[in-house]
């Protein structure tokens, strides 16, 4: 009997507890800035470590960081919002539909009206700032990333053996791939090599080699303006032409036969083992490949990897594929930063966090402790003290806080002259290609239908593309898929994007 009452008591308490959740009122003056940020390494920096102390000195405020594993950051973000205990600054990894919903419901400050008072936080690249905005609102200071990373990586020894040069146009690429497949570039007398290596890839406009090629062919980067309207790139003729081009590779055996199923974590394997000779991806992959060859043979590793930038399409014009230019942003929640005065305090803090001194600290470390400068390049301190090692590791995570709206940190010096030459080459290609970049004009806009159905709609096109390569669909089949995309909601997406485009412009 008593147990029965006990149970009833517990039930009602439990229900009552679920119903109410409160957070204590914040002090008017923020003395400790709370930050929530993801980390990608295996473990985060310890609280109150050397870097944090140095950062507190630069910004003049105490800092409390909640490091969250990035593998489940979205869930953690939503839970944090549901619980009501939000930090002052929150890293948002991208314009996910979950974030958009919360932002539209008023979760974050729109910083647009305030940035004029904080010139340090104003972006030098209006195109990238537009990319990072949401239908005209700026919900956070974006974290700048290299705007141009596209590259074509090739087996240098194969090029040399066949007397070829790095390709400049897509037609060159085809010829090189053909030579790699048919002309025995590894000299073993067997026809056991192919040209291009592409792994299984999900979705469209996800920075796949197929997407890069579409841009090179002039189809546009995700969206393109035609006849004063914004349309998706796959509705253009150039997109179909790019597919035809890739199908030539498939039909002639110039690409890995398992392009539809290959595990992306195994991407380097065919290149490294000498099965395939061309990879189209971000240029940092070249560094990884060079490292692999270096461990295999430190004496000859410089002969294997060559790199070149975006290729010229059939039109003769170079249309380069840029990245979004940013990787998420630092947003300021309204429920923790309640007044404009507090907002300005936080913006001042972010301003200082964005200063060159802070940029060096969180990206490079502390001069003399874990690195020294050789000209404008950093060199690690050897032997590394325990503190130096701690700082070097911590910096990999603190860099997540970097906005780098103004730039300002140093690049590392490479271990050998060859690697330095390759690194400089990568930077050069990056800068020159950037002048030809085709930005996605629809990036600032978020359409309601895209939020509701985007992933499934995209799959229709992505699957059709692969099925076309595999011969399961002909060109009419691809056109039918595009029609299906339109009727399943694609037309709504197009009209919504255009409406936003007119409104926000």
């Amino acid at each position, binding site marked *: 009997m008593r147990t029965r009452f006990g149970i009833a008591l517990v039930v009602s308490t439990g229900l009552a507890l679920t119903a109410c959740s409160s957070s204590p009122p914040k002090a008017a003056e923020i003395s400790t800035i709370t930050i929530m940020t993801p980390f990608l390494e295996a473990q985060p920096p310890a609280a109150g470590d050397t870097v944090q102390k140095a950062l507190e000195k630069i910004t003049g405020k105490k800092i409390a960081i909640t490091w969250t594993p990035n593998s489940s950051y979205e869930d*953690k973000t939503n839970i944090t919002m549901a619980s009501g205990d939000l930090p002052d600054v929150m890293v948002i990894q991208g314009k996910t539909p979950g974030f958009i919903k919360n932002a539209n419901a008023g979760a974050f400050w729109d910083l647009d009206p305030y940035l004029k008072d904080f010139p340090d936080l104003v972006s030098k690249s209006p195109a990238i700032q537009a990319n990072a905005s949401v239908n005209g609102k700026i919900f956070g200071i974006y974290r700048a990333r290299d705007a141009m990373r596209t590259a074509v990586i090739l087996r240098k020894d194969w090029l040399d053996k066949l007397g070829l040069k790095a390709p400049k146009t897509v037609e060159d690429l085809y010829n090189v791939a053909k030579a790699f497949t048919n002309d025995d570039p590894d000299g073993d007398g067997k026809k056991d090599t192919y040209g291009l290596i592409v792994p299984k890839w999900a979705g469209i406009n996800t920075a796949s080699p197929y997407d890069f090629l579409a841009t090179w062919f002039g189809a546009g980067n995700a969206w393109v303006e035609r006849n004063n309207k914004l349309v998706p790139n796959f509705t253009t003729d150039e997109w179909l032409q790019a597919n035809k081009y890739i199908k030539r590779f498939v039909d002639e055996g110039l690409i890995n036969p398992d392009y539809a199923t290959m595990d992306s974590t195994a991407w380097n394997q065919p290149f490294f083992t000498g099965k395939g000779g061309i990879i189209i991806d971000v240029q940092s992959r070249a560094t990884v490949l060079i490292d692999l060859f270096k461990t295999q043979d430190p004496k000859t590793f410089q002969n294997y990897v060559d790199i070149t930038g975006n290729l010229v399409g059939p039109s003769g014009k170079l249309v380069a594929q840029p990245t979004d230019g940013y990787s998420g942003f630092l947003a300021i929640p309204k429920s923790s930063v309640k007044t404009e005065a507090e907002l300005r305090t936080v913006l001042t803090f972010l301003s200082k966090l964005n200063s060159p001194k802070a940029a060096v600290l969180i990206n490079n470390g502390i001069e003399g402790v874990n690195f020294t400068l050789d000209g404008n390049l950093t060199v690690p301190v050897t032997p590394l003290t325990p503190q130096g090692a701690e700082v070097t590791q911590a910096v990999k995570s603190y860099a997540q806080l970097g906005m780098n709206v103004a730039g300002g940190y140093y690049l590392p010096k490479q271990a050998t002259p060859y690697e330095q030459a390759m690194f400089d080459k990568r930077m050069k290609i990056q800068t020159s290609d950037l002048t030809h970049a085709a930005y996605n004009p629809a990036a600032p806009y978020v359409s309601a239908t895209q939020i509701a159905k985007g992933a499934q709609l995209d799959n229709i096109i992505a699957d059709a593309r692969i099925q076309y390569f595999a011969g399961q669909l002909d060109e009419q089949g691809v056109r039918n898929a595009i029609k299906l995309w339109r009727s399943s909601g694609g037309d709504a997406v197009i009209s919504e994007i255009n409406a936003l485009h007119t409104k926000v412009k």
Partner: protein
Amino acid sequence: MSSRYNSNAGRVFDVFNVILLGVVGLLALLPFLFVIGGSFATEAELTRRSFFLWPDQFSLASYAAVFATPTFLRSLAVTIGVTAVGTVIQLAITVCMAYPLARRALPGRNLMLSLIVFAMVFSAGLIPTFLMVKNLGLLNSWWALILPAAVNPFSLIIIKNFFQELPIELEEAAMIDGASELRVLWSILLPLSKPVLATFALFYAVGIWNDFMSPLLYLTDSAKWTLQMFLRQVTVATNVAVTNADSSYIPPAQGIKFAVVVVATVPILMFYPFLQKHFAKGILIGSVKG
């Protein structure tokens, strides 16, 4: 005693059985051997060779990287502690529920069982459970790793059914001798249930050990983290890296992934051999006469 095995058919069956089980065991083990082998290999070799059991070039670099920081060892200790305490608590609560529910005469039993079945198929979800944990003040505490999953309805039902199948004569005999229901549970039923208890001790232990969602959601202080946080971070990070990564971010090497898997898995694997002696046959010999 030996007559049952010495017939020719029996012997042939035995040999065939042993070979078959050996093959199956090997098939089950091979991929794990690959993971172990890979944890001792260099990155170059892992990229070069598809599937191998023994590395050409032996390297401890992956393990060195994993054990380089004290936080990893601390999380190992934390995980062992939480798993040990948690298993005992979870099993105790479950058994305490299973015994009463095994008695068909108990008023309210069928209602409770129906509710439990419903709770088994329907989970309120991430956010409602999180809010309850928060409102109970369990955030950032290890209790949040143990209590929200304290009773697994599936385990509860099986243990209950097992109690139901034990011969009722045992209980009756004890009761006639004056034993209370609690005494019957403790002195008679539990010793007879060793295999089942051992099984679910294992299930609960593995459940806590492998749980990455709870530490992720409830533990904000990185000093309190369990192994799974690192394991998941290291194995999943490679796939996430493609879209958002900094150009300087290099995903963890395959070797490190494998090393973390080995370190995070081997301890809990060792638990079962310890329990196996409780699976010995013949516990019921002579318990029911006539």
